[in-house]
């Protein structure tokens, strides 16, 4: 997960800087895309702005990882051994969520560091002025980096919880990944065309807003609140299904 995330993060940040440097207009890709402009990249926090472009793909990777981690126990039958060893299913699920949360923290940190390093490496070739990056001092830069990581991490966690809910309900990683990614990247885009502004409040758009520190449609605070609400509902549904449902074949 770390390798794939850092690789894709490198590619996307490279693309973001190259496109911004060329003056290429990146089309609005709906909930799956939020690409900064050249001016945004040249701003004082521009060294982390490229990360928002990778947020969706990081989210997809996280959703898939959480879904696989949750569903594989069912498809392999390992869940039988685990539940026998620890009959308190709530504790079992909490342990898994905690482990995945820590893993996602590490992945999001690696992705953030990768994005910063790639930004530094790509700014000059892309012709992005980086003078403002150091204007506010090291503390401010560290604060920007920390905030970018926190936003990315929060968005990735919510993506992961979406994957967890679907995986616990379907007990199939393939179905969980297909339906999760399909919904966020395809269905929600279609809903966006039909519903207009209302689509900005759907999970995919909210997660992009969180990772970007807010968008024109949704302020960061509102996005974070709604995102946390989605996460809590997701965890509640996962818990009820995991604890109550029979463990058959």
């Amino acid at each position, binding site marked *: 997960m770390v390798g794939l995330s850092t690789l894709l993060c490198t590619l996307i940040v490279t693309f973001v800087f190259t496109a911004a440097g060329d003056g290429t207009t990146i089309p609005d890709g709906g909930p799956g895309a939020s690409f900064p402009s050249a001016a945004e990249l040249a701003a004082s926090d521009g060294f982390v702005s490229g990360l928002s472009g990778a947020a969706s793909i990081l989210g997809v990777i996280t959703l898939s990882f959480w879904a696989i981690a949750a569903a594989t126990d069912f498809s*392999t*039958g*390992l869940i*039988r*051994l*685990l*539940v*026998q*060893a*620890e*009959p*308190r299913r709530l504790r079992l699920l909490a342990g898994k969520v905690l482990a995945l949360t820590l893993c996602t923290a590490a992945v999001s940190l690696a992705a953030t560091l990768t994005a910063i390093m790639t930004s530094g490496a790509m700014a000059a070739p892309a012709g992005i002025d980086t003078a403002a990056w150091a204007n506010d001092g090291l503390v401010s830069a560290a604060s920007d980096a920390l905030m970018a990581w926190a936003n990315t991490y929060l968005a990735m966690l919510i993506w992961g919880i979406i994957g967890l809910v679907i995986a616990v309900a379907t007990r199939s990683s393939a179905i969980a990944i297909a339906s999760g990614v399909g919904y966020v990247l395809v269905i929600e885009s279609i809903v966006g065309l039909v519903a207009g502004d209302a689509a900005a409040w759907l999970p995919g758009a909210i997660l992009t807003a969180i990772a970007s520190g807010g968008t024109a449609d949704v302020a960061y605070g509102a996005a974070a609140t709604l995102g946390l609400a989605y996460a809590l509902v997701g965890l509640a549904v996962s818990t009820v299904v995991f604890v109550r449902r*029979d*463990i*058959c*074949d």
Partner: protein
Amino acid sequence: MIAIHTEHLTRRFAGRTAVDSLSLDLPAAGVIGLVGPNGSGKSTLIRMLLGLIRPSDGSAWVLGEPIDQQRRIANRIGALIESPAFVPALSAHANLRSLADLRGLDPGRIDEVVATVGLTGREREPVKTFSLGMKQRLGIAAALLPDPDLLILDEPTNGLDPAGIVEIRNLLRSLGTRGRTVVVSSHMLSEIEAVCDYVVIIKCGAVLFSGPIETLMARAAATIDVAPEHPADLERLGLLLADAGWRAGLAGDGCLRLTAPSHQAPAVNRVAMAGGITLGRLTATTGSLEDLFLSLTSDDPGPNPRSHSVEPTPPPHANGADSPTISQRG
């Protein structure tokens, strides 16, 4: 002492009753065989006992605790349900270590159970390189990890080679004689017959038989096939045997079949000799668990060992007869 007690335990799945008001008392200590045709409800029963699925009705206690309180007995039960499942990329030792950690057990126990199932030397290899038989051994090792009072094994010899089957069979026997209760669900009736002290036969979610294996085997439909040296004597032999209290029927091939235990074969011979008939064949056959199982679980209403009488009227005794060879099968 009772290891497992169920009262009207029932589980329904979408209109189908997998376990039907099942009431059982299984004794503590010893090896208990759980047999039944496919879809008879064995796995559902085991899953309910382990808290993996909830009963629709009724209640059950395992080791004195209600089954909805699995936490209290988790480390007193070890189970291998269906095929063994492990993380393939991890070694056998690492898999067992994670289970030991989850159960809060001493990791030192791992080497013990690995040795018990004969995997010493292979425990550091990834499970994905294991054969089915080795995975089965590892599954049994995982079940033994908590040093359980109750061991529930579903098809424990599945995938094992003949030597492995004997090894596991001996292991089950020794576990059963060391005060543990071992419940073995298996389709291999010879295995059940060889290792079990107690048998439960289930069909369509209901108990057909539950009791010591000796009691069940005593109900086996033992037969004696008898044929006169001269086929012309067949009818007269039948009459003589009927007069002596046996019910004899034609078994084909110039042979009569008596439903009688093998120890009555000499008496049959004496009756024939007393009537001046020399026997050409006298074969006593003991019923097997397989025969019993098939007769119990068959939809065809054949002989039922539960209602079958194996004690005919005591036959008269006759002396001084040349005995033909008696072969005993089963």
